[in-house]
């Protein structure tokens, strides 16, 4: 086991977790500029594991539930928080918010408010990599609910056909708003789903960051070698509601309790043992993360509000 990788995965997951907790806190205080905000608490291992397997030149497309991908890919907390607060200094100048957070400088091609809306974009980034031979792989995250959108099918087929360097990572948190996975499709295995496209499918435990890392590494390697896409289904769980407005009445408290017990942070500590990840490591990360978040919130608070006139800028390039 790679100690450094393990530590870094844990730290990333913690950073995501604490950031989202802080976002919820700030949201409660009314600090967020948009009502659209979806946290991925409970799903951190998928983002952390996958992004750790990426190289600097790689691209990533993200979803409405994209804080984890953004952070795991190395997005900065200051400008992220500023974006959520609707500030001029935010990544999108305060006009994108949580659902459209983006940083092209790290190959992040955008969170998307349309479920499935970025699937074609991922294929396109892959297509350009193939044409231009830029050696980049595009990782396309989406929820299991998005598998039923038509463009998902079109995109995966296109990538499979042309062997584009794209890796599809399904964050299967078992719900699309209120729709349980089994009420959403008659085929729940991604190994089987992948067969329709003639590509490898993987069903991986999405609460195990190392397992996700392994699966993602293999898929990214294949993609980079020109062997085409992989469809990875990562079994995870959304610990909270779909959004703040959602009391999650469509699932049982027993299920929630059972699934919350499978916390990716705990799972990793248990799995690797205190030998690899000691209490003091974790304490140090907690302290570091807290400091980063305090600084990010301060940066956001101190930043100027996006100016009204700017809403008429950048409509055209």
């Amino acid at each position: 086991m790679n100690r450094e990788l393990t530590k870094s995965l844990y730290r990333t997951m913690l950073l995501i977790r604490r950031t989202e907790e802080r976002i919820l806190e700030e949201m409660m205080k009314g600090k967020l500029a948009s009502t659209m905000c979806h946290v991925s608490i409970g799903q951190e291992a998928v983002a952390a594991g996958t992004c750790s397997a990426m190289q600097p030149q790689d691209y990533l497309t993200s979803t409405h539930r994209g804080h984890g991908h953004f952070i795991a890919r190395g997005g900065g907390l200051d400008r992220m928080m500023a974006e959520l607060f609707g500030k001029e200094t935010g990544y999108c100048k305060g006009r994108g918010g949580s659902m459209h957070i983006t940083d092209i400088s790290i190959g992040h091609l955008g969170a998307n408010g349309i479920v499935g809306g970025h699937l074609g974009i991922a294929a396109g980034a892959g297509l350009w990599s193939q044409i231009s031979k830029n050696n980049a792989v595009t990782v396309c995250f989406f929820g299991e609910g998005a598998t039923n959108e038509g463009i998902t099918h079109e995109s995966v087929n296109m990538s499979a056909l042309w062997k584009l360097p794209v890796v599809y990572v399904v964050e299967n948190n078992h719900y699309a708003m209120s729709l349980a996975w089994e009420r959403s499709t008659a085929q729940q295995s991604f190994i089987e789903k992948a067969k329709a496209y003639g590509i490898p499918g993987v069903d991986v435990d999405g609460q195990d960051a190392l397992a996700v890392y392994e699966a993602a590494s293999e898929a990214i390697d294949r993609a980079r070698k020109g062997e085409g896409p992989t469809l990875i289904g990562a079994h995870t769980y959304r610990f909270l509601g779909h959004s703040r407005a959602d009391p999650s009445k469509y699932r049982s408290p027993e299920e929630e309790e059972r699934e919350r017990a499978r916390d990716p942070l705990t799972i990793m500590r248990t799995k690797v043992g205190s030998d690899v990840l000691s209490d003091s490591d974790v304490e140090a990360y907690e302290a570091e993360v807290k400091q980063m978040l305090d600084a990010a919130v301060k940066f956001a608070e101190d930043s100027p509000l996006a100016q009204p006139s700017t809403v008429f800028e950048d409509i055209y390039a």
Partner: protein
Amino acid sequence: MPIMMYRDALRRALYEEMKADPSVFVLGEDIGLYGGAYAVTKGLLEEFGPDRIRDTPMSEAAIVGAAIGAAMVGGRPVAEIMYVDFMTLTMDQVVNQAAKIHFMFGGQIKVPCVIRTQQGTGRGAGAQHSQSLESWFIHTPGLKVVAPSTPADAYGLLRASIQDDNPVIFLEHKGLYAVKDEVPEEPFVTSLGVADVRRTGSDVTLISYSRTMQLALEVAAQLEQRDISVEVVDLRTLQPLDMETVLRSVEKTRRAVVLHEAVMTGGLGAEVSARITEALFHQLLSPVRRVAAADAPLPANVALEKYVVPNAEQVIRAIEETLAVKQQIAR
């Protein structure tokens, strides 16, 4: 008269139509267990069961397609598309199929279905969740388009839409769901294609629909203080467009302003303006003015979005402009 929220009025319409006609059923994302993203269908699953209140996978095109197919063979489906922005995923089904089937197949087949969706700003929901797209639908022969501004109209027009034998695009507004107003207890149906003069006046006709009706009425009330008498027309149905009511009013006031939340260019305001001008050019004392959202995407920022959509100041300015032309210098 009982006071009712817009969303509850819509639910009442669904409930009554479903009770009255077993061929009416509802399908869409999160409309069952969840009760609808904007809580319009809450409780209907318990009442009518999962066959007639059908939670669908996230497949907007197939949702509308399924509504069309069911309508062709005897059902009267009401499909919910969560945001009008997602109607972009259904345009083939709506435009190439639903709108054209009756004509294209020589009148053999009817497509009695309603596509409910909601549009507009107010929640900082951003560029992909706040648009107003009625223009696309009125530009599509074969569709009817409805956009109620009050709970009573929401109720009466939804009932009429479900009873109509054509595909109806039923545009709600996310900013109206919690609005409360009187809705008569006695069941009723509000005919499609009939505009409503919501306030009579003599100096200028202010034409709107959906949520900007509130702005229209606010401005009218405000201007009354300044002795400017504004007649306010609520279009209610956008296709067919009740130009008769509009023209009757403008004939009287000889001035008109059209107001909507959709972006200006290519908006319904252009159509209404053109039609008024074509019909009443020589009676008009000043050009029809339009007040609409700026030609810009919407920021995901509650504070910023209000700079893009129309405000009272703009409406007042437009009205003042129409009034600036003195009767004597006019033809």
